[in-house]
């Protein structure tokens, strides 16, 4: 197959579907489930980055289901890394390339370094290493966290990214306990953006908004330094729905306000896609029930569980300092001095 051979000195923003590169760098050979949205993330990721890319992948579905010996789907160079090591893999690879180029041991050129991890590998086990990497501003590398909201490869166990109340093999619904899992989802991109002021790009995306996602990957690589992109990926096996609805569920997660799309560029937060429209009041946030009722993992929900879920999502939009991004509110007595406008976003005056 034809692979572009030019370097990736610049990665221009993609203007629309017709502008998307034709070349596929993640091809057949993988054996992910039908409707696997994470596999689509892989495809979009390397489409956006182009051929002068090295990909490191931590253990999980995107390793185990993707790289069977003799049938690798990766056209670009690819290497496995350990479950909690995506941050270190990115850093070590970027540092190696940098010093070898500086010493003239390999040709000087821009090579994109992307390390991906699942939610288990990135939000639980490897969070510390990702955090460390995001402070090493001299190295160019992107960590992509594909979030299918469970330890999927090991048979769907709950992670810190599994939504409240969802059934997993570690959190079944039983006669005594309807909900085994009652922790709210950890806010990874928000926490990383807040905690790593020198990272030039941190974003939340979704493959259901493919062009938006590809542009986020390109911006991350283009701006350079250590960057981070988190995608929410519907997973038919773990979420228990028919594979044909993956894209639809991705849309619903965003439209119900559960998964806000945004990017933080050089410390400036920028809402994107439908999330921006919701914030501007141009689009009404759908009730979370629309999303929950489509998935078997929430089939055991009682009315009060749906209400709790809705209440928490509402808080993200009405009480959080930055809706869906920064989770705390400011004490009433400090709101004036900090010039915090407590009106819902769409009622606020834009400057």
């Amino acid at each position, binding site marked *: 197959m034809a692979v572009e051979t030019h370097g990736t000195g610049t990665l221009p923003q993609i203007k629309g579907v017709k502008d998307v590169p034709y070349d596929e760098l993640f091809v057949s050979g993988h054996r992910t489930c039908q409707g696997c949205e994470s596999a689509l993330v892989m495809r979009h990721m390397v489409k956006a980055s182009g051929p002068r890319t090295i990909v490191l992948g931590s253990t999980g579905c995107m390793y185990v289901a993707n790289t069977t010996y003799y049938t690798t789907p990766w056209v670009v*160079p*690819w290497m496995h890394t350990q479950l909690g090591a995506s941050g270190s893999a990115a850093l*070590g690879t970027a540092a190696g390339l940098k010093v070898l180029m500086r010493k003239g041991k390999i040709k000087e050129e821009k090579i994109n370094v992307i390390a991906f991890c699942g939610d288990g590998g990135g939000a639980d086990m490897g969070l510390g290493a990702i955090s460390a990497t995001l402070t090493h501003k001299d190295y160019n590398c992107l960590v992509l966290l594909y979030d299918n909201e469970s330890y999927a490869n090991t048979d769907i166990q709950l992670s810190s990214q599994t939504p409240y109340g969802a059934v997993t093999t570690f959190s079944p619904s039983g006669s005594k306990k309807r909900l085994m899992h009652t922790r709210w989802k950890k806010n990874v991109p928000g926490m990383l953006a807040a905690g790593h002021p020198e990272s030039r790009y941190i974003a939340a995306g979704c493959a259901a908004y493919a062009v938006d996602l590809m542009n986020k990957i390109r911006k991350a690589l283009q701006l350079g330094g250590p960057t981070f992109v988190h995608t929410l990926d519907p997973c038919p096996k773990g979420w228990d729905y028919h594979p044909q609805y993956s894209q639809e569920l991705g849309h619903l997660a965003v439209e119900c306000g559960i998964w806000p799309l945004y990017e933080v560029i050089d410390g400036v937060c920028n809402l994107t896609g439908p999330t921006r429209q919701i914030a501007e009041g141009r689009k009404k946030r759908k009730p979370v029930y629309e999303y929950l009722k489509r998935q078997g993992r929430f089939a055991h929900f009682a009315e009060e569980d749906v209400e709790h879920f809705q209440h928490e999502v509402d808080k993200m939009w009405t009480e959080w300092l930055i809706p869906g991004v920064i989770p705390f509110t400011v004490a009433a007595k400090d709101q004036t001095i900090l010039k915090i406008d407590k009106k819902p976003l769409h009622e606020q005056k834009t400057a």
Partner: protein
Amino acid sequence: MAVQVKEREHQDVETEQLMSGCEAIAEAIRLADVDVMAAYPIRPYDGVMQAAAKLIANGKMDVEYIVADGEHSQFEIVKHACAVGSRVFVGSSGVGWFYAFEAIAVTAGLRLPVVAICGNRALDDPGAFGTEHNDSLAVRDLGWLLPWAETAQEAMDLALMAWRVGEDKRVSLPVAIGLDGAFLTHSQQIVKIPTQAAVNKFLPKFDLGDRLLHPDNPITIAPQVDQDWLMEIRMQNDQAMRKAHDVISEAHAHFKELFGRGGDSPFLDEYMTDDAEYVVFGQGTLALPMKVAIRRLRKEGHKVGLVRLKWFRPFPTQEIVKSLSRFKAVGVIDRDYSFGSPYYGGVLYNEVRSALYSLDKRPTIVGFIAGLGGREIEQPMATDIFEKTKAAAGDIKSGDTCHWIGVRS
């Protein structure tokens, strides 16, 4: 901690300096033109990282020096830097070494020639940080080459050997040099620092060949081979480890020719064994008090000697068989333990006994556990070891015992 690397003029002449084992390794890093190293604090190995940091800060070497967020990251960082073709260095001690264990295991599985030091240290609880070999020894089955140094000079020399042997395409395995905590990491000795020109002759450029991860060579590293191919691949690792034996011999001969050091055998260092009847066998710095004891006991007419092991992996079985079968009894001293192992002995004891098993005429091999947690091996203990070894001679079964030395009752 006082690590002092004396500034020396950057002229390419061989010099002699008083330095610790850690500082000697830092000099080797400079001479080897290491590309990437990753550091994390834990005593005693981190003296190397402190010394190396000074060399970098003073412009004596150009290395990507990454202070990691933990040992797991530390070892993963250099593993990945190595995969894109960088010469790398890393290290740890005791519980830090164990924190990195996952990365340590896969580095060998991937055949990436990472060079590390393990500044040997007890595994903390119930509260001990002195030297003990169980940290290094925990990786003995995984495909790491494991040399042990006795002196600061040997530490530097072994480090240069480590890149040469580990990166050799016939081997392509990681190397972890054992350095006894405090006794070697932080004791100063006179060290000869070779010239850059001589080191360049000894150490070829690192070349991963067709295993290099680069867009011009778009390979997939560590695809899922599972039961279908894993045995073939493990067997290749085994063959690499076997080949390492001759590659070490070759490198040792070349090293001797260039630098005039290294002793007769790359694997064993024998002390007063020509006419010896009873010898002790061990590795690392315990050789020093044992040599003192040997000189003293020889004055009293005892025909005693020492055989020091320089490479634990690959285990030089033939050399050991040849050497130890000359004696009436051998006392194997372990600065480690292997609870519940055959005859409740140490790791080295059981390895040596296994190596000699098929000999028709074999010496009695008796085990000693000594110097754990950094306890000094004092002269009365050394005498005790030799007396017990001598007493075991002639009765092969009396070797089925392991004595704990210098322990309060």
